[in-house]
C-alpha cells in the first residue's frame, strides 16, 4: 500500500468520507440484503433518479414497460381461462370479437399474447437479475483480489465468452429435461460472462482509487469493501448491464422457444411464434398470428434500450472519463 501513503494531504478526507458514506447507505435501506440493492441508496442515486425522472427517453421506456407489466399481472382477469384451449373458431381474421383474430387451432391471439407476457417477462427479468448478480460477484472478486484469483476468473469468463452462445444453448437445452427452469438456467449459464467482463474492467478502475486503498488499510473486511465501497460507485454501469441482460434474456428465450427447445406447453411469446411457424401461419397468410408476439418482444426490448440510453445520458460526464479506460482493458 505504498500508493496510499504518498498522497497524504487527501488521505484523511478520504478515510472520513468513506465510512460516513457507508453507514448512511445502511441506514437508508436496512431491508436491503441483495448487493444490487446496496448499490442504489447512495448520494449519486438522487442525481440518477432525478435525472431519469426528467428524461423523456427514460419516461417513455418506463411507461411502455409498466404497461406490459400491468398487462402481465392482469392477464387472468382480462382473459380468464386457459388461453391455449382449442376451439372450433379456427383461423379467424381480426374482428371486434377477437381483436387479433384466432390461430389455426382456434385460440384467441390477443389472449395468447397477453398471457405470453407473463412467462416472457418472468424469464427475462429472472435471467437478467441472476446473470448480473453472477457478473457482479465474479467482476468484483476479480478486481478486488487480483493476481491469481483474477487470472483464474478471467480465464473462465473469457472461455465462456468465446464458446458460441447459440449452439451451446441448443446443446444444453437438448440434454436437459425441458421446462421453464431449464430455460432460465441455460440462459444464465450462457449470459453471465458478458456482464462479468464489463463489470470487472469497471471495478478494476475503481479498485485503484485511493478511497479503496484507504478502506483496505483501515482494515475493512473484503466483502464490505467490495459491496459497500466499490459497488455503489459503479451503480450506473450495473444498471446498464442489468438492462442489457434482461434484453438478452427475453430475446434468447424467444429464440430458444422458437426452435422448439423450450417447454412447448407453456404460453409465452417465443412459444406463440413457434406454434405460428409450426402451423404455417405465414404460408396461409394469417399474419395476425405472427405479428403481435414479435412486436411485443421488440417493444419491451426497445423500452429497455431507451432506459439504458437514458442512464447513459444522465451519468454521461463520469462515463466519458472512465469509458476509454475500460475499453482499453477490454480490447486487450
Amino acid at each position, binding site marked *: 500500500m505504498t500508493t496510499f501513503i504518498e498522497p497524504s494531504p487527501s488521505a484523511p478526507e478520504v478515510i472520513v468520507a468513506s465510512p460516513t458514506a457507508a453507514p448512511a447507505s445502511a441506514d437508508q435501506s436496512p431491508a436491503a440484503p441483495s448487493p444490487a440493492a446496496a448499490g442504489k441508496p447512495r448520494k449519486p442515486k438522487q442525481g440518477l433518479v432525478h435525472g431519469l425522472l426528467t428524461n423523456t427517453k427514460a419516461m417513455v421506456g418506463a411507461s411502455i414497460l409498466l404497461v406490459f407489466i400491468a398487462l402481465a399481472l392482469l392477464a387472468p382477469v382480462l382473459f380468464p381461462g386457459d388461453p391455449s384451449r382449442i376451439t372450433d373458431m379456427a383461423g379467424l381474421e381480426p374482428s371486434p370479437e377477437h381483436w387479433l383474430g384466432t390461430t389455426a387451432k382456434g385460440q384467441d391471439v390477443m389472449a395468447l399474447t397477453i398471457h405470453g407476457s407473463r412467462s416472457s417477462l418472468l424469464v427475462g427479468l429472472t435471467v437478467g437479475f441472476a446473470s448480473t448478480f453472477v457478473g457482479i460477484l465474479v467482476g468484483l472478486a476479480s478486481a478486488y483480489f487480483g493476481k491469481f484469483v483474477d487470472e483464474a476468473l478471467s480465464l473462465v469468463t473469457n472461455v465462456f465468452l468465446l464458446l458460441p452462445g447459440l449452439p451451446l444453448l441448443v446443446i444444453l437445452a437438448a440434454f436437459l429435461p425441458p421446462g421453464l427452469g431449464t430455460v432460465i438456467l441455460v440462459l444464465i449459464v450462457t449470459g453471465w460472462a458478458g456482464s462479468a467482463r464489463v463489470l470487472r474492467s469497471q471495478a478494476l478502475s475503481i479498485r485503484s482509487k485511493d478511497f479503496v486503498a484507504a478502506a483496505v488499510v483501515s482494515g475493512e473486511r473484503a466483502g464490505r469493501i467490495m459491496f459497500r465501497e466499490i459497488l455503489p460507485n459503479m451503480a450506473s454501469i450495473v444498471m446498464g448491464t442489468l438492462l442489457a441482460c434482461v434484453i438478452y434474456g427475453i430475446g434468447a428465450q424467444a429464440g430458444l422457444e422458437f426452435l422448439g427447445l423450450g417447454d412447448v406447453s407453456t404460453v409465452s411469446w417465443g412459444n406463440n411464434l413457434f406454434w405460428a411457424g409450426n402451423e404455417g401461419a405465414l404460408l396461409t397468410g394469417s399474419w395476425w398470428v*405472427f405479428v403481435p408476439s*414479435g412486436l411485443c418482444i421488440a417493444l419491451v426490448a426497445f423500452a429497455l*434500450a431507451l432506459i439504458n440510453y437514458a442512464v447513459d445520458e444522465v451519468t454521461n460526464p463520469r462515463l466519458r472519463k472512465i469509458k476509454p479506460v475500460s475499453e482499453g482493458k477490454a480490447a486487450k
Partner: protein
Amino acid sequence: MRFILRRLGFYLIAFWVSITLNFLLPRFMPGDPVSRMFARSAGQMQPEQIEALRKLLGVDERPIWEQYADYLYNIVTGNMGVSITRFPTPVTEVIASQIGWTLLLGTTALVIAAVVGNLLGILAAWRRGSAIDSALPPLLIFIGSFPYFWLAMGALYLFGVILGWAPLRHAFTDGLEPAFTWEFIADAGAHLVLPALTIVLVSVGGWMLGMRNTMIATNAEDYITMAEAKGLRPGRIMFRYAARNAMLPSVTSFGMGLGFVVGGALLTEVVFAYPGVGYQLLNAVQGLDYPLMQGLFLTITAAVLLANFLVDILYVRLDPRVRSN
C-alpha cells in the same frame, strides 16, 4: 511472440473445456439421453450402432477417467463417431458436406455488414449531427430490437410468399447438381440474397455505432487538427488519418464475427431451411442424434477459436503496442 503463445495456450484451454463439456454432458445430465434414444429407436438399430453409441455416450463399465482418455484420443485423431440419423455416415463426413454452405452465407453477410457499417460509421462521425448521424442510429437500434428470426420470417413472407422475388428454402433449386457452372452459381446466389440480407440488416447497426464512437474519439486527436491545418483534402484526412486509426476495435469485432459465422447463423439457416451446420445441429437435436450434435458443437467451437487466433496474429501485425508488451 510471447503474446501469441499466451493466446494459443488460452485457446487450447478453451477447446479442452468444450471437449470436456461435451464428454460430461451426456454422462451427468438427468434424463439419461441414452435410454431416451434407445426407447425411441428400439428395433431399428443395428448391433454395431448400439455398440458405437454406448461407447460414445459412456454406457460403459470402464472407469470414467479411462473413458475420458479414450474420448480425448478419438477427438484428437478426428474420430467423432457415426451419425445416427444418417447411419452409417461418419459424423465428420456429414459436417464436411455442410460447412461450405454455412461459410458461404456467414462470410458474405459478415463482409457486407462490416464494410457498409464501417463506412456509415465513418461518415456519421465525420459529419456529426447530419442526417446519417442523427436519424440512422435510432432506426437501426429499433430494427435491432426485433427478434432476428421474426424479421427473417417476415422478410421470407414478404419477398418469398407475397412478392415471389426470392426462393423459399434451401441453398439451390432441387434437382440441380452442385457444380461450377454459371447456372448453378447464379441459382445458389439467388438463394443466398435474402438470408444474407436479413443478417446484414440486423448487424449493420452494431458496426456503425462502434465505428462512429471510436471515430469521434479519434477526430479529437491533435494530429487530425494538424492534418487539417496542413490543408490536406478532407477525404484523405477522413480515411487515411482518422478511420485508419479508429479501425482497430473493428478488427477485433471482425474476428469475433468471423468466429460466429459458423455458429451464429443458426437461426437464419433454420428460418430459410439453408443446409448449413446450424440447420443440421437443430435437426440432430430433434432426431436425438447425439454423436452428430457433439461433433457439430466441437466443429463450431473449433472454428470460433481458430478465427480468434488468426485475428490475434493479425492484431500483432497491426498494433505495435501489442508487440512491445
